[in-house]
């Protein structure tokens, strides 16, 4: 009651309340919005080594037999820092999305700082950076190494082709909007999806366009090529099968949310993971739905095929194996931490990069036993 009659104190309380409300709203508003890029790099495996980028911008080379590190982590940092409060990024660590790529003694990284890096695989020494000065727009999709070139899509809507050994610019192809998709190659044809809702088929040698296919939504997922067909999901909730020769539609299948993850194929069955929490098993030829495996949590992490199993992780951190014989799921493990990064696999072991408690898990897909764990961020 006494507050009611004390105007000065009431004013102070009001001021404090407003500041608290605004500050609280700011904090709550940022929570769960994902306004700050943190990254979820997938691993690239070559010669018994897994290359991975952590959420604090560190590049690690892990011996997949025991989880030890081949060389001291290399940290990618950007000089540009924005904001300092609210939803603006405060960290100078470079966020890394998508898979890293490996080739000819080098491994390649596309950074959210708008730079493409090449490092020596055996020592971690920097070989080249593109561009050498300034930076492009953020790079979200992973690089692709093929035909002596590195292909990488950028948020400026361009697909860049660089010399894999030197990083010299070769050509670029302009799309109508951001590119977050990782390119895929079949022979000398390169496939890339864009936010402009189109899938492009390009000549990998010079970047000239062969055809384009328009969907109703943005394309973020990485195309899968199998038997002269390119399979890709879109933000319009459709999963498409397109003829690689002329870009004509073979079939399409509708889900309940966006397709983000790269599909995987096993024995003429395409497994398409969707943000509606389901993995759709579709006949590669006809598009008929063979099974629908519900994981009850969105799936953004690309699954992998290991022997006759499809390994898939939900955002909630539940790891399942789907037996391709009957398309039944079996829970391998519940990591209870967020998983967005694409999975990697080698010799019956799947490697899972978790986000909240950031670590790399090596999981035996037959037994579900964790072989080793490598914590990546101390935070």
């Amino acid at each position, binding site marked *: 009651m006494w507050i009611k009659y004390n105007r*000065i104190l009431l*004013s102070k309380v009001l001021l404090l309340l*407003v500041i608290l409300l605004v500050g609280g709203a700011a904090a709550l508003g940022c929570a769960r919005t994902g*306004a700050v890029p943190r990254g979820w790099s997938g691993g690239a495996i070559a010669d018994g080594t897994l290359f991975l980028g952590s959420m604090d911008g560190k590049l690690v080379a892990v011996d997949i037999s025991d989880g030890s590190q081949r060389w001291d982590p290399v940290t990618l940092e950007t000089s540009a820092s924005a*904001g300092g409060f609210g939803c*603006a990024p405060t960290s100078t660590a470079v966020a890394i999305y998508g898979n890293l790529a490996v080739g000819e003694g080098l491994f390649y990284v596309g950074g959210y700082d708008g730079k493409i890096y090449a490092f020596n695989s055996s020592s971690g020494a920097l070989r080249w950076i593109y561009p050498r000065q300034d930076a492009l727009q953020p790079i979200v999709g992973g690089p692709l190494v093929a035909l002596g070139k590195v292909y990488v899509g950028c948020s400026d809507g361009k697909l860049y082709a660089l010399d894999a050994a030197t990083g010299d610019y070769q050509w670029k192809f302009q799309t109508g909007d951001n590119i977050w998709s990782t390119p895929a190659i079949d022979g000398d044809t390169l496939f890339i999806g864009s936010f402009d809702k189109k899938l492009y088929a390009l000549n990998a040698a010079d970047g000239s366009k062969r055809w384009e296919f328009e969907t109703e939504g*943005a394309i973020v997922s990485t195309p899968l090529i199998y038997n002269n067909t390119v399979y890709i999901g879109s933000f319009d909730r459709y999963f498409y099968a397109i003829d690689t020769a002329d870009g004509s539609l073979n079939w399409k299948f509708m889900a309940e949310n966006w397709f983000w993850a790269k599909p995987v194929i096993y024995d003429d069955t395409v497994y398409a993971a969707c943000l509606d929490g389901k993995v759709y098993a579709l006949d590669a030829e006809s598009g008929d739905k063979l099974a629908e495996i519900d994981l009850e949590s*969105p799936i953004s992490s690309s699954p992998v095929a290991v022997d006759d199993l499809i390994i898939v992780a939900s955002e909630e951190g539940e790891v399942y194996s789907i037996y391709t014989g009957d398309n039944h799921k079996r829970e391998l493990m519940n990591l209870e931490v967020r998983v967005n990064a694409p999975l990697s696999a080698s010799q019956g072991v799947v490697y899972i990069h978790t986000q909240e408690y950031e670590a790399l898990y090596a999981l035996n897909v037959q037994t579900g036993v964790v072989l080793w764990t490598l914590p990546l961020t101390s935070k």
Partner: protein
Amino acid sequence: MDIGTIWDLIILEPVINSLIWLCSTLFDSFGLTVIVFTIFIMICMYPLTAKQLRATKGMQELQPKLAELQKKYGKDRQAMAREQMKLYKESGLSPAGCMLPMLVQMPVWIALYQSIIRVLAVTPEGFLSLSQYLYSWPIVYSTLPLANNFLWLDLATPDMFIALLVGGSMWLQQKMTMPRTADPKQRAQSQMMLWMMPMLFAFFCLSFPSGLALFWLTSTVIRIVMQYYMTGWGALAPAGAKGPGGRDERLKQRIAMEGGHKKEAPLDADIVEPVSTPEEELGYEESGDKRQDRGEGYPASFRPVSRQPRRSKGHRPKRR
């Protein structure tokens, strides 16, 4: 079902999907969407806002009386409290009257704010988060991602100019609501609010996407307009001059004139009566603000002005 899920289900999801739908109908311009949606929300919440503005205005108008009470019962707190309560009761106001509508509006603003932040997804994390709020309307899926360009702004990144505009408009609004008082303590409080809030929001704007700043700017400008029509320029009007009294006040005055009411000291005067200094009294007297029509013809201070012939070039008598 936890409170966060309920909030998302009944508040955030409808607002987010409405924003996306509206954007698809407004030429895919998210800037225009933010402005139109903010205006729509302001219209929906007009009764509450009007109540709040009137209550604030009423509280300001009570200040001279409260100051008098403080002067009279300064040391006797019990008596002062009793008299204050009596005054509030007589005037039909309470300090909570200003706060309650504001608190009711707060969840709406927080929802709108959260929705804008989510819809303006820039990072992959932002997109993944947004995907879980979407209805199964085809238009929603084909409209995303939204174009972030509006005028000179990239709505997804902070902008210095719009931060200054937000700070400036908030200062204007604060100034309009600031009570004119002779109480130095209260004046200091008002001054602190006058500068603190605009600076706080300008600082926020430098750290948040400018789409959010556009929302703050739009809502503040609408509030300024509403405030002007309800309570006039307030403290923004020059101290000596009586500014436009606002629609409500003008209406009251007209009714009073037509009905023949002649109050000795109108309670809803814009300017609070100073408590002490004779200099200030002199100032008011000179400005004419405190003149009252006592129903006896012209006030004593009124002096007839004899017209002097104007001597300017345009009216120079012709030479013969």
